[in-house]
């Protein structure tokens, strides 16, 4: 399996959740775990380019697939990804716990909808829970991310 462009060993314990494998075996702790039943969206990653819940996948299922986590959006020394930048500009995060999930959902969404309507934005992030922001600034962030991505 490839994670953020790097070949990684496959998991051995069949019941290990992909979220735990990423966090604790690969040390990619940017992917968070908020409910472990697929509702909150904190653990959203890209699986072959598409956002999925990593808490609802077994790590063994990732064999041969390509995964991307929040850590892969921008190299440590490089400027942030436009979606990350937009969330900062628009105060789209408070505690930051749900944020990686929103970022990954947004990155995939904007690839498909580079110039989204407000309704499309709401629908796209409606599978992710945030308890701090009340969503207004997240919606703004996604809108701004679309702008920044189009400029980039």
């Amino acid at each position, binding site marked *: 399996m490839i994670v953020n462009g790097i070949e990684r060993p496959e998991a051995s314990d*069949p*019941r290990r*959740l992909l979220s*735990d494998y990423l966090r604790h075996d690969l040390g990619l702790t940017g992917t968070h775990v908020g409910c*472990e*039943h*697929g509702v909150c*969206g904190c653990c*959203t990653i890209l*699986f072959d380019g*598409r*956002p*999925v*819940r990593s*808490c*609802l*996948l*077994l790590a*063994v*299922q990732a064999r041969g697939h390509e995964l991307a986590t929040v850590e892969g959006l921008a190299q440590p020394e490089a400027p942030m990804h436009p979606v990350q930048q937009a969330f900062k500009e628009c105060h789209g995060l408070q505690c930051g716990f749900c944020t990686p999930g929103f970022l990954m*959902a947004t990155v995939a*969404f904007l690839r498909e909808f580079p110039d989204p309507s407000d309704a499309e934005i*709401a*629908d*796209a992030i*409606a*599978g*992710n829970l945030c308890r701090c922001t009340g969503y207004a600034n997240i919606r703004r962030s996604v809108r701004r991310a679309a702008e920044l991505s189009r400029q980039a």
Partner: protein
Amino acid sequence: MKPPVFEYHAPASVGEAISLLGSLAEAKVLAGGQSLVPLLNFRLARPAHLVDINRLAELTKIYERDGGVAVGAVVRQAEAEVDPLLRERCPLLPLALRLVAHPVIRNRGTVCGSLAHADPASELCAALLVLDGRVTARSQRGERVIAAADFFRGTMDSVLEPDELLTEAWFPATAGPVAIAEEARRHGDFALAGAARAGDRLALFGVATRPLLADPADPTRGLEPSSEPECSPDFRLHLVKVLVERVMQA
């Protein structure tokens, strides 16, 4: 909330999958996992074996046959939602898919997995029923085709046998008006009540232990919805009328 111990199998062919299902006791099929894995994490399901069918390329197709469209067992809901063939021949299905949970869930969840799970509030089960579709089940004992009307038995219960693999679902092409509407507490939640229409056929979901066909002129006849803390039988019946009116106007 970690899954209990199980043995994991990733068969490379349908034949291998059904042979595993035929020989293993307490085996569950793992398709999209969007319903099964939460049950594992809550330890509400404790299968001894998981048979993961996600690597079965033969089950990933959407194709035309017998005047309708067949959807393989590993076709993701998100793929079906935008599939041109389905949009053209079975437009109700993409409409129903848009109401299933959230886009991220649909990226992994499968059409056939939802049917096999047989949740009474499932949009896809209602769509299969109202379209008079069928599912194909294979086991070492052979293959059988089950009509939607015969498939759903009760809450999360179908006539599928433990050794059977639901390999594909078939939806007949429709020409007349189709519509689906539901009322859920939050966007993407399971419906408190729902109605799906194909021509003059009407199916209700979320109001009984399985999807039901209903008479558009008197949709609540014979319905006895259960009482839940935030949904009384009266409110359910009220919603059914509201939703049926909506889909019949489409």
